[in-house]
């Protein structure tokens, strides 16, 4: 297989040459984006039903805004060659602390946001210190972080409850209409499509992270450290500080994501965001970030989250709506992307080494 590929390559079609010329990051991003659009177009074409309404798309966005933010932080850490599995726990802790602060202590929303940021930063800073300066495996450190956050959530309050704080509920129910999009309901009234505030925050963060990773020196450092620690060190990059910063930013994003999650569900509960860390990792991978480090993009992550959620919607609207299909679909999707990535990367490696 590889041999025939090699022989035909120089004769070359324009497309394959172009694909070969892409960086790993861009190639994987392209695959993700194409798959997402194919999937969505197929859903619109064959399933019609809900997928014709723009609001279906925005509902996916609304319910995944927090996950997008978490996955952005996760991608950053993964690009730097680490992993952070504490983000789900931090989300649960943030939502519980904010809920208790707003409801029982009579606090205001601004204070709640500060609490969320502080918790996120604290987790990021401590984990970053241990990973970067004490040289402990990020998996173990953040595993302990997850345990700690999940345990503390129930220490703060062990039973789930809804928040009734007026200012918060007003913020939670704020809907921002998307200009020009909407659908006509049964009564013939035009209902505009809307997004929640969390979505705006998520999109803002995707943009900020994209700019940070692509056009700043710090962003380059993240890729350099993840790609090859040794050569990054020789280039004069402060590897330890870069690693620390990646965890710090991830923690901060987990705090923000936690608040956005809280804003979406409006309740504090120990079972909040269960498994969010694994969803975030899966989205990052589907978006083309590699756990080995040095490859990845937050735009891909954004599409990764959307793909993961869209396929679930598609599967349940086909009629496989028993609970277990969700897990199996997610896993199948992840498996598919991992295999595609693995095959693509190994083919590229072979070709590159062949000349």
């Amino acid at each position, binding site marked *: 297989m590889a041999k025939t590929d090699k022989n035909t390559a120089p004769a070359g079609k324009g497309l394959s040459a172009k694909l070969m010329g892409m960086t790993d990051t861009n190639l994987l991003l392209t695959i993700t984006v194409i798959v997402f659009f194919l999937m969505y177009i197929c859903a619109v074409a064959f399933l019609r039903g809900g997928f014709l309404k723009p609001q279906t798309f925005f509902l996916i966005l609304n319910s995944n805004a927090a996950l997008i933010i978490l996955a952005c932080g996760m991608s950053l850490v993964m690009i730097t060659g680490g992993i952070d599995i504490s983000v789900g726990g931090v989300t649960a802790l943030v939502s519980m602390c904010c809920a208790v602060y707003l409801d029982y202590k009579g606090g205001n929303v601004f204070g709640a946001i500060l609490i969320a940021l502080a918790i996120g930063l604290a987790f990021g800073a401590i984990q970053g210190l241990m990973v970067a300066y*004490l040289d402990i495996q990020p*998996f173990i450190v953040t*595993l302990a972080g997850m345990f*700690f956050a999940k345990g503390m959530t129930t220490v703060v309050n062990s039973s789930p409850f809804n928040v009734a704080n007026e200012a918060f509920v007003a913020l939670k129910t704020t809907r921002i209409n998307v200009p020009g999009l909407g659908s006509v309901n049964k009564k013939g009234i035009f209902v505009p499509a809307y997004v929640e505030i969390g979505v705006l925050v998520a999109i803002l963060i995707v943009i900020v992270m994209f700019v940070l990773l692509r056009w700043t020196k710090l962003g380059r450092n993240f890729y350099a450290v993840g790609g090859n620690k040794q050569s990054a060190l020789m280039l004069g990059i402060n590897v330890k500080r870069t690693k620390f910063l990646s965890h710090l930013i991830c923690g901060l994003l987990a705090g923000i994501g936690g608040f956005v999650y809280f804003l979406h569900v409006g309740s504090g509960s120990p079972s909040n965001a269960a498994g969010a860390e694994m969803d975030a990792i899966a989205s990052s991978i589907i978006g083309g970030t590699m756990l080995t480090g040095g490859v990845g993009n937050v735009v891909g992550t954004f599409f990764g989250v959307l793909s993961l959620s869209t396929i679930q919607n598609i599967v349940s609207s086909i009629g496989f709506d028993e609970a277990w299909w969700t*897990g*199996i679909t997610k896993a199948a999707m992840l498996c598919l992307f991992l295999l595609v990535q693995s095959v693509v990367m190994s083919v590229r490696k072979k070709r590159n080494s062949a000349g």
Partner: protein
Amino acid sequence: MANGENVKKSSSGSWKNLIRNQCFIPIAALLLLAVFNLIADPSFFKITLGYNSAGDPVLSGFIINIINNGSELAILAIGMTLVTAASGGQDISVGAAIAIAGSVILRVLCGGNARPETLQAPIIVAFLVACVVAMLFGAFNGVLVAYFKIQPMIATLILYTAGRSIAAWINNNELPVISDPKFAYFGGFIPGIPIPTPCFIAIACMIVIGIVLKVTNLRLYTQAVGINQSSSKLNGLNPELIKVMAFVILGLCVAVAGLIKVSRVSSINYSVIAKDIEMDAILAVALGGNALSGGKFSMAASIIGAFVIQFLTTTLYKFGVPATALPAYKAVVVILLVIVSAPTVREYFDTMMKKMKLKKEVA
């Protein structure tokens, strides 16, 4: 005893050797916990012989609890150590795989009927089927890791996400209940023997793996692959095959643990069974001082690590920590242990010790 003087003379040397030994940290942690419990409440170590509802003799007490409940974890730690050593990564799907194995056992025993009067198949057949299924899932993980070169944690994330769903699907989302008392022997007591059966199963597994490591080249090959994959290939090993084998062995461990787990309750709860056990198993390996990046390993240290975690869990329960808050305390202890055993911290203390020695010599 005769050469006591010699021992005394070289005591500083042997002390150093002791600290360098991989089993030192887990054993020290175990002793620390034991001493803590002894001071807090000596009755922790009391073992009483009672009789259960069927009138059979039964040992009970916190220590028995620890050994009993730690069995599954110790069995998993065996497989996890091999996987960690060979692939330099961890399998996070063992909890989900236990759910699958348990579900398969119940499915075979019940034959599709959720409340069977009698067992539809011998228990050994059900167990063997579960073994095959669990080993197949292990092989699936192993192939992804070895041949597709996907990071173990990510490769096993697939089964982690799907496992519990597959388990529910196998039994059509019903919760079968086995009423045959024989099935409960594996997770409870065999009439007439006061020691819980899981202990025997765990000890049997330890003996088997001990013999395998002693007789075969498994240890050598696994470590060779873990330390340097390409050089092990140059030396004529097949690193891919050895990695797959490690995952298959873990699959076998999973099936055994699954049997114990479902036998304990004679039923299954797909979303709760063996929840978070993968994290405990990985922690056991880490506590055993094994490098999570692969290479050399000490099986004994991992198994002791598993019991340290169970000891800690039981201690916390005893002090009235609610089950949901347990992880927070566990995390603190784990972090302390990991910091103490971190190479940078150890180096720092080593240089401190040397400096102090130098000062003494100068004085």
